[in-house]
Every structure is written in structure tokens, then in C-alpha cells.
């Protein structure tokens, strides 16, 4: 019961904050869209064949879509904690009997849900721009998105945790978002070990569905298993590291410092 109240409370705050920063978010969506458009025409210009025959553009759309998802969640985690530390509310937040980590988990779920408000229109915008309409099968794609994105929250936890101790890490937080692209592009279909990276396998599975219409129960069982295990691993490893960092910050007495 208490948890439901906590979740609603956190969700409401995230929602209000999203409204407060609506202009910023819209602005970054526009820039993100512009970059996509440049890439699209770039590819079209360099290799018109790819656009006509291959699945390059579809891949680009899906990769972009998932990347957006990942950075929304991730930056909310890492940047959000920094913001709270800077604003000085982090200590108040830590004084919830539910524990700071639980607040953060509800925050993750909230952002995950709210992110749909941005990513879905963007998806349609990209499809309209390119004229490539992807297959959308929610039953398959939603669980895949969830497990593909989960590692970004784990990484967010790690960065939040490190941020509690080293308050000025923020610059490096941003860089990591671009490293996400490397993960997304890693050819996990060719090199087995890459399946254990965040995002890589998930994006491939999502593509199987959105491009080739393969349903979740028709997919390779081992791949699905790896996806789930890898996702949970990153998430819980991140969570655990966060708890350690929180403890160190409390020992150093720097939870409220910035």
C-alpha cells in the first residue's frame, strides 16, 4: 500500500517536472530529429541502394528509437541525482522510510512510462519522414523494449552512485550516452560475446520483429534468455553498486554536499 503511494508520489513529481522542462525537452527532441534527418539524407546521398533495398533505414529508425529510450532513462537517473544534490533535496529524499533506492526505482518506472510520450511520436515522425513503415506488434515489442532498456537503468544507478561520492562527474555522464551508440551498433549477430553488452542483442531482436515480423515466441530461445539475464545482471549490478556508493557517501558525510 505504502509502495503504491510512493510510486504515485514519485510519478506525479516526475510528471510536473517534465511539464516544467517541456520547452527544453521539445527543443532537444527537435535537435534529435534534425540529426536523424541529416543521417537519413546522408545515407540516401551516399548509397541510394541501401535506402531502396537493404534494411539500413529501418535499422537506423529502430536504433534511434531505442537509443532515445535509453538516454531518457539513463540521464534522468544520473543527472537527476546530481540535480537533487545540487538543489539540496537529496538528503530529504534519502529520509524516506522506503529508502532512496526505492524512490529511484519508482522514478525509473515513471520515466520509462513518460518516455513513451516522446519516443512514440518520434518513431512515427521518423517513419513518416523516411516513408518506411515498421511493423508494430506491442505484445512482442514492449517486453523486448523493457529488457533492452533495463541495462541503461543499471548504468544510471552506477552513475548516480558514483555521483553521490564524486559530485562533479556530470560531464562524463553525457559522454556515456554516446558510448551507448557503440553498444547499440555492436554486431552481436556476428560475434557471440557482444550479446552480453547492453542494448546490442535487444535491438537486434526488436528489429527482427519490427522489420521481419517475427513474433516473440518464434525467436531464438537462447537469445531471449541471454537478453533477460544480461538485462537483470546490469540492473542488479548497478543497483548493488549504488547501495555501496550510498553507504560510502554516508560515511564520508557528503550526501548533501555539492
Amino acid at each position, binding site marked *: 500500500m505504502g509502495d503504491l503511494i510512493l510510486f504515485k508520489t514519485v510519478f*506525479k513529481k516526475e510528471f510536473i517536472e517534465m511539464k516544467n522542462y517541456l520547452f527544453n525537452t521539445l527543443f532537444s527532441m527537435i535537435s534529435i530529429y534534425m540529426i536523424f534527418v541529416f543521417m537519413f539524407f546522408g545515407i540516401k546521398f551516399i548509397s541510394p541502394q541501401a535506402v531502396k533495398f537493404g534494411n539500413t533505414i529501418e535499422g537506423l529508425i529502430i536504433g534511434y528509437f531505442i537509443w532515445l529510450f535509453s538516454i531518457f532513462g539513463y540521464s534522468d537517473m544520473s543527472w537527476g541525482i546530481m540535480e537533487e544534490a545540487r538543489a539540496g533535496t537529496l538528503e530529504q*529524499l534519502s529520509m524516506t*522510510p522506503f529508502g532512496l533506492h526505492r524512490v529511484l526505482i519508482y522514478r525509473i518506472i515513471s520515466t520509462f512510462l513518460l518516455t513513451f510520450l516522446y519516443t512514440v511520436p518520434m518513431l512515427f515522425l521518423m517513419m513518416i519522414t523516411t516513408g518506411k513503415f515498421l511493423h508494430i506488434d506491442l505484445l512482442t515489442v514492449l517486453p523486448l523494449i523493457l529488457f533492452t532498456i533495463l541495462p541503461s537503468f543499471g548504468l544510471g544507478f552506477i552513475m548516480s552512485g558514483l555521483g553521490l561520492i564524486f559530485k562533479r562527474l556530470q560531464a562524463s555522464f553525457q559522454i556515456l550516452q554516446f558510448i551507448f551508440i557503440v553498444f547499440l551498433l555492436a554486431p552481436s549477430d556476428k560475434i557471440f560475446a557482444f550479446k552480453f553488452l547492453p542494448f546490442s542483442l535487444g535491438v537486434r531482436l526488436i528489429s527482427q520483429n519490427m522489420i521481419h515480423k517475427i513474433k516473440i515466441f518464434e525467436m531464438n530461445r537462447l537469445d531471449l534468455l541471454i537478453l533477460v539475464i544480461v538485462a537483470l545482471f546490469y540492473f542488479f549490478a548497478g543497483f548493488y553498486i549504488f547501495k555501496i556508493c550510498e553507504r560510502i557517501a554516508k560515511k564520508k558525510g557528503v550526501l548533501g554536499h555539492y
Partner: protein
Amino acid sequence: MKIIEVKNLTKIYNGKKKTIAVNNISFEVEKGEIIGLLGPNGAGKTTTIKCIATLIIPDSGDIFIKGKNAFKHPSFALKNISAVLEGNRNIYWRLSVRNNLEFFAGLQGLNPKKIKNKIDELIDYFNLREKEKAQARFLSRGMQQKLAVACAFVRDTEILLLDEPTLGLDVETTHELKELIKKKAKEEGKTLILSSHNMKLVEDICERVIIINKGKVVAIDSIRNLKEFFGYKDFYFEIEGKIKEEIKREFIEKFELVKFKEDEYVTEIEIELKSAEYIYDVIDMMRKNSFKLKRIEERTPDFEEIYLKIVKNG
């Protein structure tokens, strides 16, 4: 059972240089008690308060909230604790007054819808009604602080920790906030630990005080007792004319802390007495020497002077 027990609390910061912020502090607080935590800058007040709120993990020692170890059962401890920490950063600047109150209620697991009445009551009580919908960043410093205190009250915990709640407020707002805190804390039977450099405020609100200096407790007692132990009584006597040197010497021998000041017409005698009873001896001596007494005045030191004395001696 005491509601708060602090046992041998020690906190050492290993920064560029090692600081023993809290050095083996122990004290207990009764349920419903309002207690002041005093001490000069850097004495360790904030560290102690943050340890109680489980925001800082001490190097050794324990804190028990209602008999349970706070560091082993933080969520139990935090069900019973709310705090306003140093500075103006306890509330969300981009949330409205009402949204802040709702958020902190929810953070405590209280359903904001169910306690709507309480939230309204607090908004009125802390005179925030006209700014109810304004974002906290647009409030005056005083209103922000009132909101922060209201957000601590909305959590409805038995224990309330206030770290310098009136710092940086003007005289009027300080007075207003003091009265608001005092009344509400009494009404709701809160256990309140309050740290402040404002001795008037402390004297007015707190029944008992803990004075710490350099991380150590130098006094724990009621303000009344401290005044009695550390207080002295200064008496001023105004005598017509001058006094002979030998009589002065006699006074000094007998009462030790005597000062004389004289001009052509009057002599002022200032005597510091350990107890008011010694006044008989003074009067007797004056009568014996046929002093012409014009005026007597008693001056008791206020709590601030006593506090300074304790800190200096501790």
C-alpha cells in the same frame, strides 16, 4: 524507554586533514521533550543531527530510536523522524507549496488525498495560503523556511529535528516561526531537537539543552538549572559619598568579586554573589559602616552569557 538514545557517538572525517567532528557523545531524549542542541561553529551539531537522521554513518557508537538501532533498522527510524536541515534547501524549488507538502507526505507513505485536510490546515497555519500554488522558488526566504518546516510537520513523525531553522531570517520572521514551531510542537506532542545560535529562541522553546563544544558534551541540563549553577547574581549599590580605603579592603576580603567606582558624589559598588542570600551580609556590613544607600539593583545574566561562560569553561 527513551525515544532517542545516542550512545558514544563518534564521527571522524578523513578529509585533507582529520577532523573529529563528534567525539564520544551520549545523551537521551524523552518522548515529547523539546531539547536544544547548542555549540559554537564546528562543534558537531549538524553532524550529530544527521547521524540521528541516518544521513551520516558514524565511526562508532549507536543511535536508538524507540529502542531500535537506527543504523540496523533505518526504515523504522525514518518512520519516526523528519528533519529540516541547515540552509534553505529542504524543499523543491520547482514544485508549488501544495505540491511540496503532498510530495513529502507521499515520501513518508501518507496518501496525500487522505490527508488533504491536514495539508490545508498546515498551509493556513504557516500563513502560506496566498502562495499555495506558487513555486517555492518564488517565495520569500521566510516563507520558504516556513514551507520547509511545514513539510517536516506533514510527515507526521514523532521526532522532529530542526537544524538552525531561523538562520538568515529577519527578527520578525524569526519570532513568527518560533511561535509557530513552539505551539505546533507542543500541540502535537512532538519530540523536538533544535539546534540554533539564537539563544533567545532556545530559551523560549527548549526545556533542556545539550551544549557541545569541539565534539564533546560540556553540559546537559534544563535551562533553569544551568542558570542556577552557572548563573551568578550581580548587585549594584549606589552609596552617597566616598568610602574609606580600609572599608573597601574589608569588602573585598569578604566578598571577593567586588568592584568600586566612584566620583565626587556617589560610589558604585558592584558585587557578584553566588547566591542571593549573601545579600544579608552585604547589607549588614553597610549598616555597620553607616553607608547612605541610595539604590540597589539586581542584574542576572541572561542565558546567552551563561552559554558563553559554559562554552569557555568546557
